[in-house]
């Protein structure tokens, strides 16, 4: 089978860039920053090529590369992309140069190490989204922890050590649990097919045949690991600390991409590999998701720190995504996938804006702001746009995702109850409450502190970062079809696998 190698290039370019960066003298800060920007833009261009060549009418994985890596335990370097992963890969490659550009002036010490870790992080994130072998997936999943840990710990806020260590140990505990499930699954595959394997297409045939008693433990092991990442209530306690203490770039990547790795994992692994358990546990997980929606929103309402407010809003938004996944209807899963992208864009924009104002005043407390609309109107408009997108105003991207999720969970045969939708819908109202209230206190009204009068408005660089994000927010909100059609076939495949229905032969659908 000829390999297209495009996905391998996608992974190799940031890796090569990061290794080359080690040889650059750390005094050339400008060169290092431009180098990082160029490398991540190159990766974005490669992902656009993949987008153009992607055929959204096919259901299976495309651009597959399959090289034998460790023969003894049947591990291969097996990567491929389908509609769902394509959207997430595009999100990652889009956000990374934006993030690097946004930290142009805010990261002042150890610029070389920062760019190095960001590029390594990009390799890890992309690897997670394209891996088709569980061992490879695990390696990228864990390896991505190291750069994130350093980014929070070196360039973070005052309580960064606590936040980074908590983040690391919490996430690693979950993923080690997943490791046992991966090994267990491989051993089961050995019983069924004769060889220990961790290759996903093979395991898709083995997983559903494992009897429920054993399968539910594997499902739970995977679920807990992803639930920590998402984060699903009650595994969310690492999130506020990590988000608040991380530097702006770290928060954007953390909220924009890393959280999606959890939901992607549920969609890619939990549902197709363990369909019986997924269907049985769906109502319970959805209860947790709805609790997360409401709890996240309520706690966000009482926050005084803007970044913490946005962090808790992430918990709330991703509760919607998990609800949509476990509703297992086409609308809901499509809604979840697009909401993953939406959340990345809107929360990313929010974190960027909070970071911009923090760069100017070095405080994130809402009480230190008031009435800045007169002083920095451009910023206020941008903040309004991002807030409305986060709330889910029709016409912007958030509405598409939330509407589809609510519609899908309303008529879901798996959830079988309107209660989920009703309670989740209240989350939309709460989102409006906390977001608009924060906006009103920060932007509208009289100017509360005289020091605010000297605030400078958005620089050209900052406008350049925000405009592409806003263009996509508007595009997805007004014409989401461009993006939804990419993932439609793949979402249907996942749903059919989860519900135990027959799936079109994926091998014949594979295309370069």
């Amino acid at each position, binding site marked *: 089978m000829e390999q297209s190698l495009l996905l391998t290039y996608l992974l190799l370019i940031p890796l090569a860039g990061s290794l080359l960066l080690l040889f650059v003298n750390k005094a050339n800060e400008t060169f290092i920053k431009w180098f990082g920007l160029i490398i991540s833009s190159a990766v974005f261009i490669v992902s656009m090529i993949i987008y153009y060549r992607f055929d959204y009418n096919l259901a299976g994985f495309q651009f597959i590369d399959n090289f034998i*890596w*460790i*023969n*003894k*335990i049947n591990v291969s370097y097996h990567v491929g992309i389908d509609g769902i992963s394509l959207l997430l890969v595009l999100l990652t490659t889009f956000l990374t140069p934006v993030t690097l550009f946004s930290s142009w002036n805010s990261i002042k010490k150890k610029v070389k190490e920062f760019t190095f870790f960001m590029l390594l992080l990009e390799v890890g994130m992309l690897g997670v989204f394209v891996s088709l072998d569980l*061992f490879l997936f*695990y*390696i990228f999943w*864990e*390896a991505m*922890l*190291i750069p994130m*840990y*350093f980014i929070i*710990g*070196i360039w973070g806020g005052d309580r*960064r*050590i606590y936040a*980074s*260590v908590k983040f*690391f*140990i919490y996430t*690693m*505990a979950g993923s*080690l*649990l997943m*490791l*046992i499930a991966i*090994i*267990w699954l*491989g*051993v089961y595959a*050995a019983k069924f097919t004769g060889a*220990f394997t961790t290759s996903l297409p093979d395991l898709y045939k083995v997983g559903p045949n494992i009897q429920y008693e054993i399968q539910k433990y594997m499902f739970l092991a995977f679920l807990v690991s992803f639930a920590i990442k998402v984060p699903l209530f009650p595994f969310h306690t690492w999130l506020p600390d990590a988000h608040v203490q991380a530097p702006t770039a770290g928060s954007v990547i953390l909220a924009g991409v890393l959280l999606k790795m959890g939901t992607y994992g549920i969609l890619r692994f939990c549902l197709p590999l363990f369909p019986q358990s997924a269907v049985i546990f769906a109502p319970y997980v959805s209860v947790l998701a709805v609790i997360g929606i409401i709890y996240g929103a309520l706690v966000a309402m009482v926050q005084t720190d803007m970044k913490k407010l946005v962090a808790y809003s992430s918990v709330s938004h991703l509760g919607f995504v998990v609800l949509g996944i476990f509703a297992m209807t086409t609308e809901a899963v499509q809604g979840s996938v697009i909401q993953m992208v939406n959340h990345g864009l809107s929360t990313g924009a929010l974190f960027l804006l909070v970071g911009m104002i923090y760069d100017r005043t070095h405080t994130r407390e809402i009480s230190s702001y008031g009435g800045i609309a007169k002083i920095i109107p451009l910023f206020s408009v941008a903040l309004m746009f991002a807030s409305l997108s986060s709330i889910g105003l029709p016409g912007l991207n958030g509405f598409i995702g939330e509407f589809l999720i609510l519609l899908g969970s309303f008529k879901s045969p798996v959830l079988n109850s309107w209660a989920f939708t009703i309670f989740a819908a209240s989350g939309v109202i709460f989102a409006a409450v906390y977001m608009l209230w924060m906006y009103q206190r920060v932007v509208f009204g009289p100017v509360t502190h005289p020091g605010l009068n000297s605030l400078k408005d958005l620089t050209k660089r900052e406008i350049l970062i925000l405009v592409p994000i806003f263009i996509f927010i508007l595009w997805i909100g007004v014409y989401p079809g461009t993006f939804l059609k990419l993932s439609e076939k793949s979402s249907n495949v996942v749903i059919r696998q989860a519900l135990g229905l027959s799936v079109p032969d994926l091998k014949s659908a594979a295309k370069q």
Partner: protein
Amino acid sequence: MAESLTAVQKLSNKYSKTYMQDFINILPLSIIASGIFISVLIEMYSKYSEEILPWFSIIMLISSAVSSIALINNTQVIYNGTLATGGNVYIFYFMFTMGAALTVFSSIDYIKKYGSYFGEYYILLLSSVLGMMLMAGAKDIFTIFMGLELMSVCFYVLAGINRKKSGANEASLKYFLLGAFATGIIVYGIALIFGTAQTTSIEIIVANFGVLSHNILFIAGMLLFIIGFSFKIAAFPFHMWAPDVYQGASTAVAGLMSTGGKAAAFSVLIIILSAVFPGNNVNVFRPYFAVIAALSMIYGSIVAISQTNIKRMLAYSSIAHAGYMCIGLAAGNYESVAGIIFYLAAYTFMNVGVFAVVAMIEGENDTNLELSGYIGLSRKNPKLAALMALFMFSLSGLPPFAGFFGKYYIFISAVEANLTWLAIVGIASSVISVYFYLRVIVLMYFSEPETEPAVVGGGYGVFSAVIAALLILVLGVFPGSLLSLITAYLK
């Protein structure tokens, strides 16, 4: 005269082929042995021995390593069934000699720091390597014992070689007393085994294992033997000597003791248990190994958290790693043996590298060994900090380093042998251990130092740490080649 000459010639022609073959068979061993003798001569007669001896030892060790890789296909049992060559034995030889070579590299500057130079240091190092090699290649119980005694006595002396330090004297005496006690238990076990099996040849014992295992005296003998070796690998509850000895011994030697000594002891355990691996016999020692594995992993990981001295912390982490490897012994199939050997290779380089870095940071008179000495190291010496971070990540089992793959493979073998609970305990202790490995990195990178960290030096130490780091990276990203090499020679 002419007849006696032709007689001698005839004899030598008849035996020369076997002598040549024998010479090649024991080439790695004879290189080390001749190295020992020549080192003694150099030490006695040359006044430049301080400069020559380290490099000479390195040359001998590396040539022994190279010869064992070159002759790896030469799998035979020689000397009347007492010594094995080729295959996994030579993989062990490679581990021992490379580990010792890296230790010698880091010792060169370390000894200058302490000012007490003894030529015997390098001679004892080479002798201990010879002892390890005898243990790994043994096919007869007496060979095991010879190797064990040779290695142990050299380690007892090496632990206390800085005789001006009271900590070293204490370490050496503790090690000697407990080690002699353990050896006594081993000898008693050997006596019982010999009494019941009526032979010291391991092949015959292995062949008759099924019959012999019904004999309670034989099992008692095996158990005593295994307990004695559990002392040597510092598994719970036979671990008490490890923290004090690693702390008191000179750091470079501690690196070799924790890796080579442990690897040699594990090789003996693998040899003695080889009856159960093909699955012909029930693994009667599974409960024993499973329990000490679980306890070692948990104990080592938890107690290491409270340590402030980095050498003691590494000693407790060694106890935990011995636990992971004992999972393989409990599982008792071919995959687990391959896993143990791979883990030992990865562990050897990880630990030798760590101790090399610690040796460089250590100040005179045992200063700067506390964790607080590592604060802000990333600013003072970024290369050393990066190497230390790499070793810490590998020890905690994070991909893509070698430590992860060793653990992964052993966990696979445990699950295949229906010991999933043990793999879960292993996972739990991995999570616990992440805390104290990460703590070092936090101190190096995230904390601000109040005082300037001590100046660290050593060109050769950095070299050995870099080589160890490269080997870990290679083994981590491409473990397949070593793994297939090991499994090819297992069947």
